């Protein structure tokens, strides 16, 4: 395992700037530990795919550096390419080939011997339950099958780092869960580093050891899902009201059981120690300051709430 101080990926002020100063990725300092699953979570247009494109040597950075599996993306792109596997956001499979042919072709590009290719293809096809379809043309595969094939194609070369760009985008819930399981299983078996991008909170929370929230090209916060959610308090109370909420927000913040106060478009979100217990106190407070409550709900905080806290916006699907 090639390490850079124990890190699989390390970037420093990684930037991609287009005309008129538009920055798709803005001075990103990313650190991904080896043998972990890192999820880049953010809405569409946040710069996730651009970041992955730079890390996989598809796109040159405008400035900054990136070390992937110990190799610099600009100085030694060949070194990077040898050690990574990539599954792209779009399906980039050649329809005219069969699943097995696609895997074999991929293995040949990386210099795998015939026996290694055959063996690994067999193993990976079994892992994702694609053996029966292996000798059928990819154009006949369903969307879910194509995604699974994309996933194992990236694995044919036993990479040190696997990049998954929106691996379950457009995939139905059932296949989404299956693909997620495959990813977890793979990490355990091979001791591999996985960097995945997603705008799906549940996916990030379930699969990732570390989550990095990105918004408008910037890395806003990094932590394990549990850590980030714990910061929000034990429960999240969503208070919705018509009127401006500043007075209420300030008053609520003063309460001793409130750990977080986040203004939203429709009201205020409070992090509290126990939603059920504190409900009446919050309602009473609202009445005291004259804030008309339209609706109030209690839920365990999610990464969506974390996103809201750090970016001031909701993470929409």
């Amino acid at each position, binding site marked *: 395992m090639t390490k850079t101080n124990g890190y699989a990926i390390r970037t420093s002020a990684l930037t991609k700037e287009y005309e008129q100063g538009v920055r798709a990725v803005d001075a990103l300092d990313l650190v991904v530990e080896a043998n972990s699953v890192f999820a880049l979570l953010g809405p569409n247009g946040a710069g996730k795919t651009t970041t992955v494109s730079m890390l*996989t*040597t*598809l*796109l*040159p950075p405008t400035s900054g550096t990136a070390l992937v599996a110990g190799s610099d993306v600009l100085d030694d792109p*060949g070194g990077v*390419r*040898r050690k*990574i596997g*990539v599954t*792209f956001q*779009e*399906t*980039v*499979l*050649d329809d*005219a*080939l069969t699943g097995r*042919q696609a895997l074999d*072709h*991929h293995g*040949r*590009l*990386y*210099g795998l011997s015939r026996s290694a290719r055959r063996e690994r293809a067999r193993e990976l096809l079994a892992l994702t339950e694609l053996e029966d379809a292996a000798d059928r043309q990819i154009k006949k595969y369903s969307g879910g099958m194509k995604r699974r094939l994309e996933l194992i*194609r990236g694995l044919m070369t036993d990479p040190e780092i696997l990049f998954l760009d929106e691996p379950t985008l457009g995939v139905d819930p059932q296949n989404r869960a299956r693909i997620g399981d495959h990813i977890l299983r793979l990490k355990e078996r091979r001791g591999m580093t996985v960097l995945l991008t997603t705008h799906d909170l549940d996916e990030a929370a379930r699969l990732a050891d570390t989550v990095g929230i990105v918004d408008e090209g910037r890395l806003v916060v990094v932590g394990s899902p549990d850590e980030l959610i714990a910061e929000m308090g034990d429960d999240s109370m969503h208070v919705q009201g018509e009127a401006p909420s500043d007075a209420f927000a300030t008053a609520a913040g003063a309460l001793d059981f409130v750990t977080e106060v986040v203004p939203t478009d429709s009201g205020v979100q409070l992090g509290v120690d126990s939603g059920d217990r504190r409900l009446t106190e919050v309602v009473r407070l609202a009445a005291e300051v004259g804030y008309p409550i339209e609706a109030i709900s209690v839920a365990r905080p999610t990464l969506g709430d974390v996103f809201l806290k750090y970016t001031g916006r909701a993470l929409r699907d």
Partner: protein
Amino acid sequence: MGAALIIWNKQMGKFARNGEESVGSLIQPVLWVVIFGVGMRSLLGPTLGSGDAYVSFILPGIIALTVLSGATGGGMTWLLERVQGIVKEYLVAPIARLSILLGNAASIMTKALIQSVVILAVGVLVGATVGGDALDWIGALVLVLLFGLGFSGIALAAGSMTDDIGVYHMMIALLQLPMLFLSNALYPLDSLPIWLAWVARFNPASYLVDGLRQTVLTDGLTMAGGELLPLWACFAVCAGFAVAGMLLSLRVFRRSLA
């Protein structure tokens, strides 16, 4: 460059398995030979000399046309594969960018060489005399290969410049047919008006055509007129064209990646 071979292999495999494409690629050149070999010869043959000699004279032009069409089609396939994302697999693999282009150009050329042999074979059936020693044959195929690589390079470059098929065809059309018509493929060089003769002398296609006429289609020389482009020049120009074309494709492709 082993990767070029792997990519060539994949493209040829697809071609072999695609019945419509393989059969279609053989029918088109045969049609051209028949049109010129049977149709036109009765029109032009008697006036120009002999019908058979006419077919031998015109065959190199048909080969050039076929190579140009093949490369144009190959450039379009390249554009589609780029747009579909298939090329991304190659871009993140540890292979040289040039290999990707060479592998595709080589598969375009292999198909064109097969078509060329078919053209020569059918040409014989309609009266051409195709012959020469082993060196002539090798020379002829090398000329076709080099010229084809040159134009494939141009087609791949055009296919890297745009994501729109319409725009691609517009760009390539500016070159494809003019390359054929503004050459000595259809008329002897010394019978062309002065300005056209000069354009033809700068056109790589003329060198492919005269090269073929001096190797395996010598029967057509009677109609080729007094001025013939020397054989050494034919090889030199086609080789230069091949190198220039492929380098152009590499440059344009690299630029499209930034």
